[in-house]
């Protein structure tokens, strides 16, 4: 089963008879990058002059010890940092033409549509499996029973959940297992047609098998999405990362191709971290 919501799935998925039309125009060259980004929470600098560029259609892993600002950086991309009291952003974060740091409330909802999030712990909304996916679509103005039916099926297939839940689409999503819930969360994010996917240690709360399933999904999805992943597990990063950002105390210490960073780290701190000197 291949996933390809950008270009219709005629050639890839011959078994299905449904059609999902893109509701939103294809975002061609949305680049996500930061320039001199600093984030302060209650006056404390959490991120210091971060300059990164997220490569397209790759898995970018942000690694680093606890408290280095990985999650804050991730949550700056979709402005979820706003939920923290006393947060202050400086610098520039660009997503295509959107200036994320200076975006107003309406623009933020559009940015969040373009940048999906897969949470750390599976977090189904208090509604049915079907509604979990339809919810995001409705919010962004997609309606109509037939259309939603097709979208729900398409994205449940995309995360390999369709066959497991097709008979109980209208039962509460909370009845699913942890791994299934996490895949549902992924489907929920995909259904609003983002270009980027943020994953905040999205496999850390899952059992090894579910964790592997979700991980494999990310690898499949990078064909159509650019994925930014925060991970605590270096082994996971080694398995799936194409691009690596190593952070320490709110600064980007090293950034580059996965092979280069893991096998020939330039910076001493990176070497120490990869060597297990601290975690």
């Amino acid at each position, binding site marked *: 089963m291949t996933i390809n919501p950008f270009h219709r799935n005629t050639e890839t998925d011959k078994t299905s008879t449904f059609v999902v039309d893109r509701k939103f125009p294809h975002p061609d060259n949305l680049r996500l990058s930061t320039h001199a980004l600093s984030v302060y929470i209650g006056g404390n600098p959490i991120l210091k002059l971060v300059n990164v560029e997220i490569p397209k259609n790759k898995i970018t892993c942000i690694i680093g010890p606890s408290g280095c600002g990985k999650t804050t950086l991730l949550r700056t991309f979709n402005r*979820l940092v706003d939920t923290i009291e006393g947060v202050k952003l400086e610098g520039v974060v660009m997503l295509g033409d959107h200036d994320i740091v200076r975006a107003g409330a309406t623009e933020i909802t559009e940015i*969040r*549509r373009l940048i999906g999030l897969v*949470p750390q712990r599976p977090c189904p909304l*208090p*509604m049915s499996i079907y509604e979990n996916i339809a919810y995001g679509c409705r*919010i962004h103005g997609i309606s109509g029973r037939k259309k939603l039916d097709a979208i729900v099926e398409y994205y449940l297939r995309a995360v390999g959940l369709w066959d497991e839940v097709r008979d109980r689409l209208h039962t509460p999503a909370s009845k699913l297992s942890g791994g299934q819930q996490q895949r549902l969360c992924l489907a929920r994010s995909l259904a609003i047609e983002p270009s980027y996917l943020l994953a905040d240690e999205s496999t850390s709360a899952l059992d090894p098998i579910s964790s592997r399933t979700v991980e494999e999904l990310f690898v499949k999805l990078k064909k159509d999405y650019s994925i930014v992943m925060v991970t605590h597990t270096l082994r996971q990063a080694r398995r799936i990362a194409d691009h690596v950002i190593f952070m320490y105390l709110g600064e980007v210490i090293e950034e580059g191709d996965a092979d280069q960073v893991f096998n020939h780290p330039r910076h001493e701190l990176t070497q120490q971290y990869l060597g297990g000197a601290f975690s």
Partner: protein
Amino acid sequence: MNRRRLKDRIAGYSMFILTISSLLLVVAMGIGLYLKAAPILEEHSLWDLLSASEWKPMKNQFGFFPFLMGTLWVSALALIIAIPISLLTAIYLTEYAHSMVRRFVYPFLDILAGLPSVIYGVWGMLLIVPWVANVAAPWVGRNTTGYTVMACGIVLGVTVIPLLVSLFIEIFSNVSHELREATFALGATRWQTTKHVVLRKTAPGIIAAIVLAASRVMGETIAVIMVCGNLAIVPGSLLDACYPIPALIANNYGEMLSMPLYESALMFAAFILFFVVLVFNLFSRLVLKKVKTD
């Protein structure tokens, strides 16, 4: 060593006994009220008592229907006024307001919740009753003293708002932060999040809180006596006087000593109130507990 253990045991047991006795007190109250109400139940059938409208204790006529309807009318009106206001206030405070606002408003709400109800009653007499008499009633072409279902409902509604707001706030605060973030991350606005996720998640809790507030409203006495008009009639509109059950008991208990059946009738009224409030409370506590553990 042994002395320490002995003290510990004694402390444990005595506190246990005190706790149990406060529970037994409720049971004892229920039984006491029932026994006191028994004489009137022997003479009149339960249905007659509840459905008759004539309240003439001197003529041995005890119809509780006007009081039941009085309680029903003012409670319903109070809740209709209080629920939307409290719900929106709580939503504002938990979902929208800056923490500075919260820090300022929460203590204020606690003060309001702690105000003696007689103060709400005085405020009702000074402001609401004249407003009903001079503004609301003439506006629909009626003439009243102002001591009406309307005044009573408004005063009761205001009395119960702080309680409802703090219950709602507690319920909404129980919704996990992750859930809110999950819907924000999909691009939902705060209103969409509130409407589709927070309210849906907390629906059982909201109902329980409303039931709790309803039992509080039905039992409120002092503020009610001061503004309800105290006429044993079945109210036909918002601008009629009414006579809720707590007011009946509090107004008459002192003067009925010479008539055994009168006392029994009032105890019967108290028993109805006790029973309804107890059932409401238990129900809502159970639901609230379930909401919290989920």
